């Protein structure tokens, strides 16, 4: 195995986060069994105090999970020199079959974490904790996900040997290669544009509808997920080409490098934020009917929806601008 502080740090963080979640889950089970908001017994008081602990554990756990996602990508980037054939993070992720799953799991945990935190925040606004059972059940479902992420990541790092020859982003994302990445890269630009702006339009529509009419929150959340996936696909399929000004460089990680003015950040940060905030906005909408939560939902749903929509607009604007200002012209090739 490659002994490298960043890897040690990542394994440590995942282990501790899993532990924190298992601890929280243990308390959650206890809570689910004995919770009774109307009782004034000592047990109930203790359980109510426990909720603070669980909230704290989980808020920190998800915050660290996000940072570990970033660290993971950075580490993959910086390790590219140690693998034959790797020139950026993509190559490092390809070293064995656990690399990409780790990345996807980390992203998934981040988004689900956002959803949980949103539900938790809302629940705390209700004087009778109406969502207690739901949120702790949800927590019990999240725990296996986080533990899986730990194991998958561990396997990825443990099975990493430096004498494996891996493929770099050039061959992985080439349109004539095999695999999902290739499929995505070979998505024709016209189709990619259609998918991107189409999903963008749907997101804006459902979001505005939600903002103005207060209906369709879940639809908004779903469409934001679709928009997220569409955006990633578009970045790989054609936006990155314009940033690199190279007709065959599809890699989604190289745009984070300084050589390209850190363009990746301008795209990924608004995208991730917009999607997670939209998820939060949408996930609180079904509880509007609960009397103790009604006021909170009325206040927060529009705010979150508005922020998410603004961030989406920013993302689409930046993505479009990057294509328009690029020196690459694909006239007669694509258009």
């Amino acid at each position, binding site marked *: 195995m490659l002994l490298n502080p960043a890897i040690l740090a990542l394994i440590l963080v995942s282990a501790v986060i899993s532990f924190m979640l298992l601890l929280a889950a243990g308390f959650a089970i206890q809570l689910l069994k004995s919770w009774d*908001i*109307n009782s*004034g*017994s*000592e047990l109930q*008081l203790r359980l*109510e*105090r426990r909720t603070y602990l669980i909230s704290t554990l989980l808020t920190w756990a998800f915050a660290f999970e996000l940072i570990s996602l970033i660290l993971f990508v950075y580490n993959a980037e910086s390790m590219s020199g140690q693998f034959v054939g790797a020139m950026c993070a993509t190559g490092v992720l390809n070293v064995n079959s656990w690399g990409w799953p780790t990345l996807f799991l980390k992203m998934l945990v981040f988004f689900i974490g956002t959803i949980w935190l949103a539900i938790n925040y809302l629940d*705390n606004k209700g*004087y*009778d*904790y109406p969502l207690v059972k739901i949120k702790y059940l949800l927590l019990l479902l999240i725990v296996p996900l986080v533990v899986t992420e730990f194991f998958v990541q561990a396997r990825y790092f443990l099975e990493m040997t430096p004498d494996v020859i891996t493929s770099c982003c050039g061959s992985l994302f080439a349109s004539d290669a095999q695999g999902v990445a290739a499929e995505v890269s070979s998505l024709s630009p016209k189709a990619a544009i259609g998918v991107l702006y189409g999903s963008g339009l749907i997101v804006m529509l459902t979001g505005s509808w939600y903002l103005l009419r207060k209906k369709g929150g879940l639809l908004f959340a779903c469409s934001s997920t679709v928009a997220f996936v569409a955006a990633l696909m578009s970045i790989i399929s054609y936006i990155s080409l314009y940033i690199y000004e190279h007709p065959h460089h599809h890699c989604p990680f190289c745009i984070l490098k300084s050589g390209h003015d850190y363009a990746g950040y301008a795209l990924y940060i608004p995208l991730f934020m917009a999607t997670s905030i939209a998820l939060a906005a949408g996930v609180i909408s079904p509880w509007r009917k609960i009397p103790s939560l009604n006021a909170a939902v009325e206040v927060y749903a529009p705010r979150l929806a508005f922020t998410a929509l603004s961030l989406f607009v920013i993302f689409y604007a930046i993505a479009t601008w990057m294509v328009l200002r690029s020196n690459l012209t694909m006239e007669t090739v694509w258009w």
Partner: protein
Amino acid sequence: MLLTLTDINKVFNQGRHNEFWAIRDLSLQIEAGKITCLKGASGSGKTTLLSMIGCLSRPTSGRIMLEDKILSGLPERFLTDIRRHTFGFIFQKFNLIQGLSVLENVMLPAYPLGLKHSTLKASARQLISHFALERVMNNPVEWLSGGESQRVAICRALINDPQILIADEPTANLDTRLSKELMGLIDELRQSGKTILITSHDPVVFDSPVVDRIIEMRDGQILGS
């Protein structure tokens, strides 16, 4: 009727060998704008009752209502919110935070509200000058005399403009002169529209003409009920 308590019970260490029922089947009504005194020896449950009324703890069973709002079933977060705006506390040991100045101590209860600093400071200064503490405003509270500390504690209790003031054995650390002075201050507060609840076993308090009603407690129950 400002405060209504119905069938309140409070037990500690329930189910264990040292189970202790501090309050048993207690029902009570407190009128607005009056000074009520809870009288009783230590262990009678008056401090427990006071902390339940003041939203510092929850009854094991029974109902507490503030006008028409039910307080007893609320979780801590909401209880605290109500407490901030409804109740001001004065403790027997003053309980000021050492190391902070008079001004800071007075502003302390309002920190979690995130008010504009200038507004908060202005309200604090107003209270401080009303109680003749301007001279010592920026002094650390360790330097204050007993009487000054008592007045700072009152300012602190009033910073969030509460409806009800709760004083637990306020004269325990004061001499007779200061005790009488305190009762005078309390009367002033009642005249400005506040409701006051005092616990004491000091005759200076419960024999004072200022007190409107005396409730006597023993073994977690009200005598005569």
